[in-house]
């Protein structure tokens, strides 16, 4: 690494490519994510951001290229293995168990940290350690008061919080967030931002977001993607100053929301 | 065994495949576009065969029987769609399985009430009774070749409809993404009715075409139903192209299985399906779900 301020990369991708037929959704991407940093990925719709997240989480297998978690090659691992290694993710479209309580949602997530859940006879809810982890996650995502509410009955913002809470219950080292603020009211956005800020102290956050105000205020590193390729990576200031980014993507107003070319 | 033996067997397989395609294409359309598992599809095949028998008896002509019977079958299909299937689009596959199973029972009993439980046959139309000599001992009936020809025409017709017409555009959109169809503002209800009616019509048409070379008997729909499902699944659900290649594959595998592993030839097509699914869990031409 030439940049002396860069900490050791916790996650490192090299030559990562994902093709759907003739289309390369992610095209030969090289990126390092430093441990503990908050790294935002921005770009116009169709730039390949969500595909990149899906590759990192294991939801999609890459066509070529490698992903390393510290020194370990995790390129071809399935999502559950990646999750067990500490890569947690949330989804763009809320992905919770709507028929269950918030508690149960987080419980299921926390239980996944047991060495194995192939336990057939004991009542699941008797485990004190899992209960503690569940309550911690609920507290973190500010839903401890709503623990017994059926998740499907929560407001949209609360559901997004729960989504994050579930992932937190799996005790991740790296959190992949796919548009955590999408569709939220202003008030909900503020609350979620506060949550993310508190998380950023201990975790490596990698997020996709269209809200440029948020990105530039919050992220320590920003990567701009266009057409599946990395256009530029740098601090918010560097990105703002980049002529290439301005030309290709940001166009005329650097804070324009959901910029679409 | 010589080369001509294998060539004739290949012809047998392809010919069987064409007939399967006719039934399976309707099934795959309904499957892929509407997301409905229609166990009663075989019943439409049976209805077609019985209509052919009944109307040929009345009119004395298979052609007339088809012209009269096809609208009847399509109307039955539309009625079934309207009054039963349409309530299940948002429900789990299981309910479709259950409902259409109930429909099989109803259709079977209706057949028994309307036409009795005797076995019937339909005569091959006069013009097509001849046969072409292949070897010293075997000849090939013209009617079978005619059926193949009709199947090719139907396949081409479907291809053209799907590639070139507005309806085809809707079908393609529907097959790839149901939500998108709605977003595009297409009338999904109408599309579903058309697709189901067409599917039912295709199955009934297959039954009518097959009637002169098949026996017309109670329960005839069930045998072809399971085979058609195998075809659809091998080809990939919702893919007409898949149904075509699946039908060819099954036709050939079944034919050569009968010759090469005669003692266990019943297993062949199922083993083939299992192998294909293990290799490509979404079928040969299916989209990954």
């Amino acid at each position, binding site marked *: 690494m030439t940049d002396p301020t860069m900490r050791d990369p916790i996650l490192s991708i090299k030559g990562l490519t994902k093709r759907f037929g003739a289309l390369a959704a992610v095209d030969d991407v090289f990126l390092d994510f430093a441990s503990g940093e908050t790294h935002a990925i921005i770009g116009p719709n169709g730039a390949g951001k969500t595909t990149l997240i899906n590759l990192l*989480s294991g939801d999609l297998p890459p066509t070529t290229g490698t992903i390393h978690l510290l020194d370990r090659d995790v390129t071809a691992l*399935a*999502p*559950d*293995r990646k*999750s067990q290694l500490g890569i947690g993710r949330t*989804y763009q479209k809320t*992905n919770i*168990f709507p*028929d269950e309580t918030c508690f149960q949602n987080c419980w*299921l*997530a926390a*239980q*996944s*940290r*047991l060495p194995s859940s*192939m*336990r*057939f*006879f004991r009542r*699941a809810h008797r*485990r004190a350690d899992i209960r503690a982890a569940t309550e911690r996650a609920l507290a973190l995502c500010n839903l401890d008061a709503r623990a017994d509410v059926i998740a499907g009955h929560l407001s949209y913002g609360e559901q997004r919080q729960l989504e994050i809470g579930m*992932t937190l219950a*799996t005790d991740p080292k790296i959190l992949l967030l796919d548009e955590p603020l999408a569709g939220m009211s202003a008030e909900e956005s503020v609350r979620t931002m506060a949550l993310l800020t508190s998380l950023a102290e201990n975790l490596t956050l990698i997020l996709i977001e269209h809200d440029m105000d948020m990105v530039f205020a919050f992220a320590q590193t920003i990567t701009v993607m266009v057409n599946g390729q990395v256009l530029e990576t740098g601090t918010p200031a560097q990105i703002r100053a980049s002529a290439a980014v301005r030309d290709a993507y940001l166009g005329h107003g650097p804070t324009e929301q959901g910029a679409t070319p | 065994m010589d080369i001509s033996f294998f060539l004739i067997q290949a012809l047998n397989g392809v010919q069987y495949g064409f007939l399967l395609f006719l039934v399976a294409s309707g099934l795959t359309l309904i*499957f892929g576009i509407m*997301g409905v598992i229609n166990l009663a599809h075989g019943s439409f095949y049976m209805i077609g065969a019985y209509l052919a028998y009944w109307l040929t008896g009345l009119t004395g002509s298979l052609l007339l029987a088809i012209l009269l019977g096809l609208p009847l079958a399509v109307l039955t299909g539309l009625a079934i769609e309207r009054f039963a299937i349409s309530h*299940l689009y*948002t*429900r789990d*596959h*299981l*309910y479709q*399985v*259950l*409902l259409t*199973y*109930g*429909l099989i*029972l*109803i*259709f079977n*009993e209706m057949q*028994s*009430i309307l036409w009795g439980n005797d076995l019937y046959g339909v005569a091959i139309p006069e013009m097509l009774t001849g046969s072409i000599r292949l070897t010293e001992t075997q000849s090939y009936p013209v009617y079978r070749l005619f059926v193949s020809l009709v199947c090719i025409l139907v396949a081409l017709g479907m291809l053209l409809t799907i590639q070139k017409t507005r309806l085809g555009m809707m079908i393609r959109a529907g097959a790839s993404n149901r939500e998108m169809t709605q977003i595009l503002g297409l009338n999904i209800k109408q599309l579903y009715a058309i697709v189901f009616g067409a599917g039912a019509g295709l199955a009934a048409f297959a039954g009518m075409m097959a009637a002169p070379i098949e026996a017309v008997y109670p329960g005839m729909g069930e045998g072809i139903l*399971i085979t058609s*499902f*195998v075809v659809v*699944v091998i080809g990939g659900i919702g893919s007409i192209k898949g149904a075509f290649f699946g039908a060819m594959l099954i036709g050939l595998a079944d034919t050569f299985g009968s010759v090469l592993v005669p003692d266990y030839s019943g*297993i062949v097509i*199922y*083993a083939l*399906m*299992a192998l294909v*699914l*293990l290799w490509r*869990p*979404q*079928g040969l031409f*299916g989209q990954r*779900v």
Partner: protein
Amino acid sequence: MTNLRPTRLYLLIALCIVIAVGLFPLFGEKFHILLATRIFILAIFAMSLNLLIGFTGLISFGHAAFFGAAGYILAFVAPEDGAAAFWWSAPLSIGGAALLAAGIGWMSIRTSGVYFIMITLAFAQMLYFFFNDSPYFGGSDGAFIYFKPSLAIGSFDPVNLDNRVHFYYLAAILVLVVWAFLAMLLRSPFGQVIKGLRANEPRMRALGYPTQRYKLVSFIIAGGLAGLAGYLNAAQSGYISPAHLGWQESGSVMMMVILGGMGSLHGPILGAFTFVLLHDILRDLSQHWLLLMGGVIVAIVLFLPNGLAGLFTRKRIPQRDDDHD
């Protein structure tokens, strides 16, 4: 999912049922005792499938394969001139069915949705043709189990399966045992996971669960339980044929599950009971009983979306608007 907390009314009903089942042989007619035994056996069969359909979200269309295979194992190991001991023949049949489920499951769970339905059907059909075509198992005419298994331990022989009342109680107790086993299973960590699988499999994977493994284990347990039912069935009727593995049998048990209510512990019992009685009553009612049966099935699907169990619970299963296969 299911609310297992018993209310007082619920307990009262359960008590009444237990008493009724317990006393039934005292006043029931011979045939009705046989019929009830058959219903118990089918209830176990349906409960085993419900573990897959209702709780794990795996729609198996080939479940009769395990039911039939267990029967064939019993027929194969039972001597022609005496009774096989229950204590080893039953575990063998159940274990054999579970092993078969492990093999079929291992291959099938790679697929999902409709493809899973069809591949399980394919494996069951293969077994059907295997037993039908093979010269070693009686072919299409089937095979006999000449003597009912014996539960004797040494000279201690309290339960004689030749006595239909004894068989009745054994089957009834096994229904209870399987019910309790499933209730416990569903409250265990494993049960929580498979219920999560049914609701949203990709999410469970993202949470770090190796979902394939859980599905496979669930499939094996269900196969073993179906094996238990198949064993009892073969022991009761003394006869097994390829048709026992056919797709129509797989279809019937699926009917029972849906009829009773998927994802409800007692639903399949209710479903088996209703299905058998309905079949019996409608067949006596009219020559065209298939029409009535078909009509009832269609009506249930259209008007009782949660099955019969849904009549008793007020909770509605929310309609899904997304279509994940």
